[in-house]
């Protein structure tokens, strides 16, 4: 696979961005990734945040880096490899990872399945968004009877949520 930007070199970096809800993906070679400002995608964030934390804690961060209790990774290890070491790393480095995750996903709240729960049973918010979409489609296809039924059910659900 060749770089989307120069079309010459093999791809080393995949970028996925969401801006105003629109997702764009590109695959870049190391050189173009650097040029377009993605070269320090992981490290830049880490260092900035690290130095900020370092400032708070009197610059002890470099001499005594925090290591994950489960896999032994430091935050620098994660930034260098671009891969998280283990589940515990997410907790150990939570505050420092959040800006990175925001940069990737533009949203930091999970929606959907929760272990032990039932993913098929939608939460009210998801159910509402699906019903609103169905309502738009029903109106577009001039299926007004179904649309009226959906409108009533949406109102009911919204009322239920307001009372909660």
């Amino acid at each position: 696979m060749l770089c989307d930007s120069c079309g010459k070199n093999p791809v080393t970096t995949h970028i996925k961005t969401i801006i105003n809800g629109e997702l764009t993906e590109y695959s870049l070679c190391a050189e173009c990734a650097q040029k377009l400002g993605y070269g320090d995608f992981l490290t830049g964030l880490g260092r900035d945040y690290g130095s900020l934390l370092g400032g708070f804690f009197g610059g002890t961060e470099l001499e005594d880096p925090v290591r994950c209790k489960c896999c032994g990774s430091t935050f620098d290890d994660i930034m260098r490899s671009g891969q998280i070491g283990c589940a515990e790393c997410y907790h150990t480095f939570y505050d420092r990872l959040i800006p990175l995750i925001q940069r990737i996903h533009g949203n930091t709240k999970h929606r959907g399945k929760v272990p032990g729960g039932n993913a098929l049973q939608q939460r009210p918010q998801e159910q509402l968004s699906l019903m609103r979409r169905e309502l738009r489609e029903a109106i577009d296809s001039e299926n007004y009877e179904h649309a009226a039924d959906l409108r009533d059910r949406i109102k009911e659900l919204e009322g239920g949520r307001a009372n909660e």
Partner: protein
Amino acid sequence: MSNQNPVCEEDVVICTHIHLIRNLRDVPFVSKMSRSERQKLEQRVASAVSENEGLSRVFRFIDMESLSKTEAVSLVERFLISADFLSDCRGRGLFVNEDETVSVMVNEEDHIHLQCEQAGLNLQKAFEKADGLDDILDKSLHFAFDENLGYLTQNPVNLGTGMRASLTLHLPALREGGGVSRISTNLSKLGLALRGALGSGAEPKGAVYQLSNHVTFGLSEQEAIANLQSIAMQLIEQERAARTELAESLEIQDTVSRSLAILQSARMMADDEFMQLISNVRFGVAAGLIDPIDYGELNRLMIMVQPATLTVAGGRKLTPTERRSLRAEKIRDFLQKLNA
């Protein structure tokens, strides 16, 4: 869904896959694991499977280290594993059910990568199966999850639901009209991707494409499935409209009939040629230009004569000429049996 058929939209949708990726809470992620740690994890998954009567009855385990290169590639051709899974087979294993519609890769990029397949367009059913399997495995393996971040993954790009839904589509008419690249650019703006499923480049083999969701974070499984379903229905309608137009051409009718005749009688068949001919025949069946052939059978044939799968069936290393000859023979037999 209003369609009562057990297999929906199979003239355009070959099959539906739901993938879920999961990691265990108490084990480092795959890139941090040694071979022996990976093997230990395989054993833990094996215990989780054996604890469940339903799973232990249907699943068999394949140790990737024990396979020849050809056998391993055949698993990719049968859509059971990803090509990445082959890059390093050490400490990697696969659980697969009898009809090969459910599989669990252990130690791919993440600890667990499970996938469920359904024929035609059936996202809901495939998801229900994957969701059920996920629940069973979670009881013993305890997957890593955070209320805000969702399922925790080695690469933060996959955080959230860890779900990819994908549809394998046959789009010969849209490809013929040059519409696929335009559509795929527009789809990427909606968080979906449309790519060639077999082979690389602008002209994927047999006009077989894969449509899948990209966004795993901030969208629930049901929302992602609804998005994909709605876009797929639009694509299907566009493909059907383009087919109706194409089918009126005498040249196209001639190509379809010739394609079937060649498949029925050729003595040597190269892979690329086969994919083009089977694509023409599938199109011909859908457009009513030739006698109906069951789509499921056509899909089975398509996989059966892929290079590595064919070689495995041949039972020995084959020269290119031998492979072409065996492929032609298998195709002739297959079509003859269907007619019988």
